[in-house]
């Protein structure tokens, strides 16, 4: 039997709130299955499990906030006898060896979460906070919903199942779907970003490089490619930039990875952190997994999906913890260049400003070409300026042969 613990979803996370369990004792799970929805201070994250097995007991109730590393559930080996399902009235998990009495009573909703369930009210509906909000949004009568969660609790999915067809909102609801209010969320995110960036600037000896890149070939190629494409398949220039970075860093692995305990550890793949600004403030940089092995269409689809889910608060745990090198693109906001701050424990950050027409000297002639200024902020403990300079040159070279991106 092993414990499934509250994961660290980024270096800035100290604790998380279990908003909703998607599994119950006795459920068989596979590595990569989404088992819970966890609220970090920055976002709601769908947490994946990293082993095959059978859920033994849920140790932390929905609504409880616990530190990173706290056991959330026990996981039994595949084939182990599943524990008997708990009776609906039972408030304690079925096999609670690690559960303290306070945890058991903590099954009552946390104060900030206005739910109907509570101790001594066994006949009342057990509804997860998220399900309650979803029901309110979709106009679903909770008494008509059959719960499939732990102890028959109604989950968001149960609500969505019975919602009138066409009712689910296509986009994120107006208010961030969080356990805390929008103002609290923003303040918490500000604090989390501040703590992480302060740590970065305190611990990481940054060095900075910049290189202007001629984008005329890339932009011509992109316009030509988009002419042939239906609107839904069109590519954005930022996709070319991401692809160029992913392909360049394959040849410069000392910039792709982490600085942990005084040593560099290469990343297990090229998982680009894509900095996504959130409307209303804040920032999140989830991983675009294996970006070096994706073609432009796959990168476009991947980024679009990440941006949408980042803003709707539906990222997955692996996306939060896996980035090996972050890319930030502030070109849409018109800035010329970005001097980035590295996300610990990563060792580099690539920045792009706006692609715009600038004077460009080549072959003894002065002309006007679309250019972009690529910047690198890198950790001097892990690499030197020489390496960083070669890396920017590799990005530049990639962007001169857009057809191979």
């Amino acid at each position, binding site marked *: 039997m092993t414990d499934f613990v509250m994961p660290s979803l980024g270096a800035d996370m100290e604790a998380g709130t279990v908003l909703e369990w998607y599994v119950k004792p006795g459920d068989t799970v596979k590595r990569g299955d989404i088992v819970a929805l966890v609220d970090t201070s920055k976002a709601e994250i769908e947490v994946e499990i990293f082993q095959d097995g059978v859920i033994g007991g849920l140790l932390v109730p929905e609504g409880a906030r616990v530190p990173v590393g706290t056991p959330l559930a026990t996981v039994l080996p595949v084939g182990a006898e599943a524990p008997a399902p708990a009776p609906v009235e039972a408030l304690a998990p079925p096999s609670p060896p690690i559960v303290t009495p306070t945890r058991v009573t903590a099954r009552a909703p946390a104060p900030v979460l206005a739910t109907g369930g509570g101790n001594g009210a066994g006949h009342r509906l057990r509804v997860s906070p998220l399900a309650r909000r979803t029901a309110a949004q979709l106009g679903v009568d909770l008494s008509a919903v059959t719960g499939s969660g732990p102890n028959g609790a109604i989950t968001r999915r149960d609500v969505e199942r019975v919602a009138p067809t066409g009712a689910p909102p296509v986009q994120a609801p*107006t208010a961030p779907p969080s356990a805390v209010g929008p103002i609290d969320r923003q303040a918490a995110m500000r604090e989390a970003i501040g703590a992480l960036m302060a740590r970065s600037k305190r611990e990481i000896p940054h060095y900075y490089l910049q290189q202007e890149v001629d984008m005329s070939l890339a932009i011509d190629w992109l*316009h030509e490619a988009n002419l042939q494409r239906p*609107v839904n398949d*069109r590519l954005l220039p*930022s996709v070319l930039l991401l692809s160029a970075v992913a392909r360049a860093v394959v040849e410069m692995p000392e910039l792709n990875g982490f600085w942990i305990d005084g040593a560099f550890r290469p990343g297990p793949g090229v998982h680009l952190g894509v900095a996504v600004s959130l*409307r209303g403030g804040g920032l999140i940089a989830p991983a675009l997994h294996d970006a070096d092995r994706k073609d432009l269409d796959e990168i476009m689809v991947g980024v679009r999906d990440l941006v949408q889910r980042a803003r709707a608060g539906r990222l997955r745990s692996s996306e939060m913890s896996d980035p090996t090198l972050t890319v930030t693109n502030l070109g*849409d906001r018109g800035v010329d260049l970005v001097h980035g701050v590295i996300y610990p424990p990563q060792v580099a950050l690539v920045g792009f400003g706006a692609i715009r027409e600038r004077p460009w000297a080549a072959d003894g002639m002065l002309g006007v070409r679309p250019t972009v200024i690529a910047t690198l902020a890198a950790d001097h403990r892990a690499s030197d300026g020489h390496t960083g300079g070669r890396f920017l040159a590799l990005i530049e070279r990639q962007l001169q042969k857009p057809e191979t991106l």
Partner: protein
Amino acid sequence: MTTEQELRTLVISVLTEVAPDIDAAAVDPDADFLEELDIDSMDFLNIIVAINGRTGIEIPERDYPKLSTLNDAVSYLAEAQKQAAGA
């Protein structure tokens, strides 16, 4: 044929789906989407995709600058519709 008022309602609805924090009633019809309403290039593409999905109007990339405000977008779509009907 969709009336200009209907096109306006459609663009506002697409805009507020992409950017839920924008108050539909308070959108300045001459505000630049990118510069004043904080729409980025990914949001803008999603707006174009949604307009295309609901009206069937094809908007080539080179025309994107002609849809940079609510008023401009409505005029562009009304004109595109007229041309399609006349063709």
